[in-house]
């Protein structure tokens, strides 16, 4: 038992010493001299271009994009209704695609497949689903097919 009590005492001393700097400066601080919403991106901006060129295959980046679009769609439809103004939704998609360096995301089938997955994850069904599908696809038949494909692929 002496080992345990020594260890506990050591931990207490270490905790007490760590409390000192915590009192002075606290834990991680994100400095954002720009707008409030930009602060989330500031870390990635600093590192993104360095790490971007070194790792991550194209397929993993595509997968990440699809996951982000799908999660975003799920969250959006849960807080909205089928007849809501879609401009803000579309702007959000643009922000996600911008991180990949893509501005023509509306021509990419992956975007619509991911939207379909998000609708399924949000539990949207029936008429509400059809309305969302039509609105998100801007009534484009190909995009609607892709949304359906994503919706059907999600368990």
């Amino acid at each position, binding site marked *: 038992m002496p080992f345990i009590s020594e260890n506990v005492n050591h*931990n207490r001393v*270490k905790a007490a*010493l*760590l*409390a000192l*700097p*915590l*009192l*002075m*400066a*606290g*834990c*991680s*601080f*994100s*400095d*954002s*001299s720009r*707008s*409030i*919403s*930009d*602060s*989330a991106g500031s*870390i*990635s*901006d*600093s*590192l993104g*271009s*360095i*790490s*971007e*060129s*070194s*790792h991550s295959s*194209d397929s993993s*980046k595509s997968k990440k994009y699809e996951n982000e679009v799908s999660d975003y769609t799920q*969250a*959006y439809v*849960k*807080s*909205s209704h089928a007849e*809501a103004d879609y*401009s*803000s*939704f*579309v*702007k*959000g998609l*643009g922000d996600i695609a*911008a*991180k990949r*360096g*893509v*501005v*023509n995301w*509306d*021509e990419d089938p992956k975007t619509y497949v991911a939207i379909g997955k998000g609708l399924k994850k949000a539990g949207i069904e029936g008429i509400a689903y059809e309305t969302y599908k039509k609105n998100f696809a*801007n009534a484009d038949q190909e995009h609607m097919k892709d949304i359906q494909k994503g919706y059907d692929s999600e368990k």
Partner: protein
Amino acid sequence: MRFAPKLPCVGVFALAAALILPLSAASPATFNFVYIEASEGNSSGGHAAIQFDDDIYHYQHVDSGLTRLFRQEKNEFHFLYRYLQNRPMHIARIEADDDTVNRLRERFKSQFLTQERQFKLLDDLLKERIFIRHLLYAGGDEASALRLKGVGLFYNETQDAAAKSPAVQSLRQKIEQRYGTDFLLRRRLNIEAQIKALRPSRWPDLESVDDNFAPAIYSFTEHYSDLMTALFALKALSDAQPLRDDALVQMHQPNLKISEAEKPVLQDLRNRLEASLIKALNSNRPDWGYAVLVNLARHLAVDASLQSGYWTFVDDFADDSERLNPDQYLGHSAQLRALINDAEAAQNRFRQSAASQRHLSEAEYSQIEMAANRHLELLNSERRRTFCFNGEKALPSKSITFPDGPVPELTPAQLSEALSKADELENRLFAALQQNYRYDLLGRNCVTELFRTIDKALLKPGDDPGALTKESEQRLGGYIDASYNFIPFVAYQSVLAHYRVTESRDLDSYRRLELAKLTGLIAAWSESNIISSSLYWYNPDDSLFVFFTDDNVLLRPLFGVVNTGAGISQSLYGLFSWPWDAGKNLKSGATGILMSLPELAFFNMRKGSYKYLSFKLMED
């Protein structure tokens, strides 16, 4: 790296069974609790995070006085904390059933997305207030925060006309062939009419901020900004405006020469950018103006590449990128050379891939554009010039402030009413966010909020809060009370002691990894201080110190005395240099003293940090 498995005794049969069982049966669901040791800088008390697969979630104190959840890719997080900040990291792998890990993952993800929306709403309200004030009183310092993204690629603040670009003239002809000769004019008149008819936003009720995703709003200011950007996109096409000189990055270097294999790839890309531009012009997506400007800029860069025979790119550094002067990076030439080599290698790799695949997608082109921009910018360091270091964007974003031009037709009374409403809502939302996310050194910090989010994930809506301890014990092996675990180090010990930890890892910081490769007393002594060290080059972001004490326990108090002396010296110097450096040295010296004092009691905090490390070091 030290590895400390916490495994129950297993017999030979159990081990054999584990090896032949399918992966899903042999690998129960897990997540990681991450503890980062204290150091000088922005988290001197240490830091903590939670990891699900490649995503790491961590709370940070933002400058609005709130705590905010961030999500970062695993490799970026490790590079930032273990390499650049040079801190050892400790990871505890916690086993739980699928349902529990899914609940936790979904909870953190949902919290992250919810906060993103809430903070965007706050930012939108701030911009709305500034814009309405700008409309009411014309100008003001705050108005510089209102910017038209992408317009700065073609126009400066005074919108000076330039010689017409034949490439844009040619594009304009194709647009007119497709949509009619008066299309650009009709589109412009339509946009101007829309601007005049714009009305202030109808904001949602912001009485309380809860865990639900706030309703999305396409704000008055955002709408105006998109319409003005669209007007400039039309103007650039009508005027056949070329890219601004400083928006184009071109160097006729041998390594940037376009190969025969690359030519058809670039021609195909140019055609696709042209098609996308023409399509975007008639699109009803709200940000089509920005899409037109980016497609146009990249089209012109690719066209210039094909004309000159050398790769040419759009400058993708943001307006507020971090710029370094020669005096800031002098003495780091070897590290900067490594970064230059990395960027060049990445650029070559992406180019080779495009040539072999005979195709370049928009995302792939963006990767080449980023690597090339970074490469060319870093090369300026070898010419002793100021260069952009951080702030690169995956999409070009050069902007200008809101210019004079058409404005919504609103009376002063309407604007005043909208201003009052935006002001009130902004205050109300900020107060609500403060109530939920206010940073508190002891009660609400980066580690307490991790445990509180875990608690929320374990209880379903309507569950008895009293059942939390039992639920946590059942699902995670124990319960950790956030109130008593507000210090990251203590929290990590609690995780090891209470949760079902299957293994723990101690990951060394960059300097200690490198130090482990050296042997001998002479090497140990020369690496013990910043004067003779070959592994550390003084980073001005660190306060002045002489000895490293993280790897030398016995001599720590003695070294601490010298380091305290260095801190006092810098502070004294800072007293005199205050008029020139705005108190920077005094502040740094005071921090140095505070970081050195614990060393007198055998305790280390300062590790020394790095600014110019290569990401490849981590991969190697």
